[in-house]
C-alpha cells in the first residue's frame, strides 16, 4: 500500500486486493490523459485519509490495465466503483465535488 493509504491495483492483482479488504473498496478508474480524473485525485486522497477504517480507496490506470474496465463495463472516466463483499455495490460516473461524493458514498460510511 502506498503511504497515502490508496491501493494501486492492476489487472492481475485486482480480485485479490478487492477481496482482501474487510471494508468496502472504492476503486477510482483513471488515466493520465483524463483532465477530470486529475481533478478528483486530490479529493479522493483527502477522502482516503478521512474515511480510513471505514472505506478502502484504490486506483487503477485504465490505460495499462484494460481488462478491469472491460470486465466492469467502464466506458467513461473517472468512474468510481464501490465494491462490497467482492461485488459492485455502486457506480459513480464522472467527476464530482467532495460534498457530492461524500453524499453518494454515505451508504457505505
Amino acid at each position: 500500500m502506498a503511504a497515502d493509504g490508496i491501493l494501486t491495483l492492476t489487472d492481475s492483482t485486482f480480485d485479490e486486493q478487492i477481496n482482501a479488504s474487510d471494508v468496502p473498496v472504492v476503486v477510482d478508474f483513471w488515466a493520465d490523459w483524463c483532465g477530470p480524473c486529475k481533478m478528483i485525485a486530490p479529493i479522493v486522497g483527502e477522502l482516503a485519509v478521512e474515511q480510513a477504517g471505514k472505506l478502502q480507496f484504490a486506483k487503477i490506470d485504465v490505460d495499462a490495465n484494460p481488462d478491469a474496465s472491460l470486465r466492469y463495463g467502464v466506458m467513461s472516466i473517472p468512474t468510481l466503483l464501490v465494491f462490497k463483499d467482492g461485488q459492485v455495490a455502486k457506480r459513480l460516473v464522472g467527476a464530482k465535488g467532495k460534498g457530492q461524493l461524500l453524499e453518494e458514498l454515505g451508504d457505505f460510511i
Partner: protein
Amino acid sequence: MTSTGDVRNLVIIGSGPAGLTAAIYTARANLAPLVIEGEPSSTSDQPGGQLMLTTDVENYPGFPEGVMGPELMENFRNQAARFGAEFLTERVSRVDLSQRPFSIWVGDPAAPEPTFRAQSIIVSTGAQSLLLGVEREQELIGHGVSTCATCDGFFFRGQHIAVVGGGDSAVEEATFLTKFAETVTLVHRRDQLRASKIMQDRARANPKIRFQWNSTVESLIGDEKLAGVKLRDTGTDEVSTLDVTGLFVAIGHQPNTGLFKGQLELEGNGYLITHDGTRSSVQGVFACGDVQDQTYRQAITAAGSGCMAAIDAERWLEATDHGTTDLPDW
C-alpha cells in the same frame, strides 16, 4: 456595513481563462482576490473551464507548437497563485447583489449568513455544453454517451461512433476520436459546418470521418448501453438508424448565469449584458469571458476580457474608496 469586518475587496466567480486572467491582474494590484473556482465535473462547467476537456490548443498565442488545454489552464492558475490569489474549489450556490458588500454563499444556499462578503465581484462563470435533451440521455452517460471526448475516446477503440454538432468543438472532437474509433460519423443538422476552415479541411481529409448532413438525433437505442441512434432528416422527416456504440455531443453551449437571474440584466438567451467595458447592470459587479460573449468565445478573447474586468474593478474600487461610495455615472 456588516459587523464582521471581514469584507473582501474582490471575489472572482469562475476560473477559466477569463477568471484566472482577472486573478493574475488583480493579485498583482494587491487586491488579494479570492477565486471561487467551481467543482470537478466531467462537463466544461468545472475549474479551468472548457479548455480542461480539450487536447491541443493550436491558436493560443505564445505557443508555436501548441499546448495542451489542461496544461495551459494549470499555468494560468499557477501564475495567479504566484501573486497571491486565493482559491476555493467549491461552487457558489447563491449570491445577493441587492446591496454592498455583496453576499456570496457556497454550500447550503439557505444558510442565514453568507460565506463571503465582497465590495466587488467579477463574474466569469463561462458556459457549459448543451446536451441533446433526448430521452435516457443522462442514464446512458458512461454507457456510450459521453460529454468528454478526451476522457472517453480510449474506450471506443475499433468501434463505430458518432459526434453530434458542426462547430469547432464537434469537428475537433471528431478528428481526435479517429485516433481510437474505426469510423466517426459527424451528425449535423445543416448541410455545412460552422467550424473554422482549417478544422473543416482536416476533417474532410480524414478517411475515418463521415458526414451525416441535415440530421438530428431523434432517440437513443440500447438498454444497458448505447447500440445506435435514430436520426431524423431535417428536410424529408425520414427516420433512419445509425449503428454506433458511442455518441459524443458537441452541439454548443449555454452561459452559466442561473445564479444571477433576477439580479443582473441578461439577454433573452441567458448571456450577461455588459456595458462600458465589463460593467454589469449592478455597480461593482463586472463580467468577462464566455458568460457575456456570444460572438467570439475564444480562450484569448476570454483572457483579454478578464484583463479588462480586472482593470475596471481596480479603478472602480479606487474611485469609490473601496466600494463605500457610488460612482454617479455607472
